[in-house]
């Protein structure tokens, strides 16, 4: 981790080509994997994980973007980025943090952050799937002036710091703020419902991202959350958060304590044009659509979990009613919503990671492709297990002692599709009984499926079923299955590998088709294409 220092310097250079004199960077190690560097440039804190240096400061604007990245894979999987207004950083500067606070802050919040693509000139606050970062913290940061830097307490419930956020937006730059502000101020008090209504399944990330969203409250609540999780970098934030957190109390969702603050702040936020908006606008750059997608589309299945926490919402709502402020209530509900949503997302991401570890050679960091691979792998595993168990059961039957099955199986020529598969074993020199009706070889099928995952090549065809009775209809049945159906005499064509077909999928069908026997008798007389080599020798009927 210390080796990063030299790199850091280079980054510094490229990060702030035009940086002002104020340049200070801190390096702190977060957790085991991340090394966060705090870089103060031009009065703004730019922090980036040492692994992701490049992300910071895409734009050589006056302020550098501040990115907090956790090293986890969630960067890609959950592209929820929370962007903090640059303004926020300005305000943070007022409260330089000492290393202690910062480290504490960072350590506390490292899991909260997700790597985010650098946003130009904006602070990215990745609050997505990471554990529910206390939103209020972020907000706290936003409101710098009144609060002295305090070491950040870990996660404050998301309850609302929004109003504070609004205040802090005052300091923010107009350009960014306006965007948010417009939306924020517009909704001001009434925004809360917006988000909540939008989608119950709104994920935290979405809220944060949607800076333009008219619904304030989510932005407010999210902003606070986001900022909490992300912001932390600056000392001011830390301090602010600390104060907020303390004010909000440790009680997770203690709405009571917060509400008054919230309400007060909201009142002030309204006038503060866009203060809240700005807060919400944590990511001005994030396309609102993304978040909206998340919100709207919100995986339906997630809703169930979401709703399971209705009780919690109701509780909060009840509290809000005490104060008789609809907007506050809605805001609170939205916050709670966001909180639960975030928790849900975290759970899911955890499981995705676990699944990723189970899948061999899975190098995808992308959620969708990873799920794709998981599905494929699961199918292959199922097929493999099925084949193995069948083989295990059938092999004992293959012994010569089992006379009555032998003839029946004879037709199962070894040639069965063997040629189709790159077999790694020499073919057993048995007469290829199957005249032309090479049955879709399981091995082949397996081979196809096993391209990625090793699947045992079935050399079933080689089963010693061949017997002199090659004339029998070469029923291209899976040798393993033969014994049973054969008892009826003529080998019933049987659904060849029906159980397999459903797994084999289409690609193999082409193999099956041509192999289908036209007719038993006809088949026998016709030397199978693949078995020609042996036919003349062994095929008595040919």
């Amino acid at each position: 981790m210390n080796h990063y220092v030299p790199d850091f310097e280079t980054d510094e250079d490229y990060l702030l080509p035009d940086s002002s004199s104020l340049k200070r960077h801190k390096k702190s190690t977060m957790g085991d994997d991340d090394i966060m560097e705090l870089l103060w440039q031009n009065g703004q804190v730019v922090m980036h994980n040492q692994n992701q240096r490049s992300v910071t400061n895409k734009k050589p604007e006056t302020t550098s973007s501040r990115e907090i990245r956790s090293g986890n894979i969630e960067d890609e999987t959950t592209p929820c980025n929370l962007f903090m207004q640059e303004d926020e950083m300005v305000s943070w500067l007022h409260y330089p943090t000492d290393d202690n606070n910062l480290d504490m802050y960072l350590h506390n919040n490292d899991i909260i952050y997700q790597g985010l693509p650098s946003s130009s000139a904006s602070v990215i606050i990745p609050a997505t799937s990471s554990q529910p970062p206390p939103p209020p913290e972020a907000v706290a940061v936003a409101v710098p002036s009144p609060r002295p830097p305090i070491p950040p307490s870990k996660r404050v419930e998301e309850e609302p710091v929004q109003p504070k956020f609004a205040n802090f937006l005052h300091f923010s730059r107009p350009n960014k703020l306006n965007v948010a502000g417009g939306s924020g101020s517009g909704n001001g008090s009434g925004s809360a419902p917006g988000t909540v209504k939008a989608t119950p399944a709104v994920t935290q990330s979405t809220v944060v991202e949607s800076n333009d969203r008219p619904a304030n409250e989510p932005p407010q609540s999210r902003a606070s959350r986001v900022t909490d999780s992300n912001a932390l970098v600056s000392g001011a934030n830390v301090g602010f958060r600390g104060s907020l957190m303390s004010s909000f109390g440790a009680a997770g969702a203690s709405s009571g304590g917060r509400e008054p603050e919230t309400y007060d702040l909201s009142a002030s936020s309204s006038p503060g044009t866009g203060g809240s908006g700005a807060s919400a606008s944590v990511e001005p750059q994030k396309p609102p659509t993304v978040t909206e997608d998340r919100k709207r589309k919100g995986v339906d299945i997630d809703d169930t979990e979401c709703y399971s926490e209705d009780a919690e919402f109701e509780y909060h709502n009840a509290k809000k009613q005490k104060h008789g402020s609809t907007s506050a209530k809605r805001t609170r509900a939205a916050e709670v919503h966001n909180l639960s949503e975030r928790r849900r997302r975290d759970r899911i991401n955890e499981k995705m990671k676990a699944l990723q570890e189970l899948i061999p050679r899975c190098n995808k960091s992308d959620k969708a492709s990873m799920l794709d691979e998981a599905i494929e792998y699961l199918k292959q595993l199922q097929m493999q297990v099925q084949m193995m168990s069948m083989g295990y059961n059938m092999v004992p039957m293959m012994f010569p002692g089992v006379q009555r099955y032998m003839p029946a199986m004879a037709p199962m020529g070894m040639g069965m599709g063997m040629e189709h598969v790159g077999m790694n074993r020499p073919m057993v020199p048995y007469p290829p009984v199957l005249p032309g009706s090479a049955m879709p070889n399981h091995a082949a099928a397996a081979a196809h499926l096993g391209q990625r995952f090793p699947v045992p090549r079935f050399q079933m065809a080689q089963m010693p079923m061949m017997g002199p009775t090659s004339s029998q209809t070469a029923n291209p049945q899976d040798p393993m299955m033969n014994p049973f159906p054969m008892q009826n005499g003529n080998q019933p064509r049987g659904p060849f590998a029906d159980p397999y077909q459903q797994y084999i999928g289409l690609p193999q069908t082409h193999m099956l088709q041509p192999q289908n026997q036209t007719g038993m008798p006809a088949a026998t007389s016709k030397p199978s294409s693949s078995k020609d080599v042996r036919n003349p020798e062994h095929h008595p009927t040919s």
Partner: protein
Amino acid sequence: MSSRRSRGTTRITDEQIAELVSKLQQLLPELRNHRSNKASASKVLQETCNYVRSLHKEVDDLSDRLSRLLSTIDDDSPQASIIRSLIN
């Protein structure tokens, strides 16, 4: 799955994820109920992990048995070759 790039970030719609999760759910023996839409993503993922682990165990177990079986039969027999093919 197609993912659209937006602002440099990969954009995976929730629909895609939901679709994949439902596909996965269909493969799981426990969740393949008629009301297949009721499982949450978290549950599906959890079940998948468990199922994969159990399949792994089963494969290992079958491999053991097959190899034991292999030792009991004549190596030249076709059965042996079959068994060997089954054992990865």
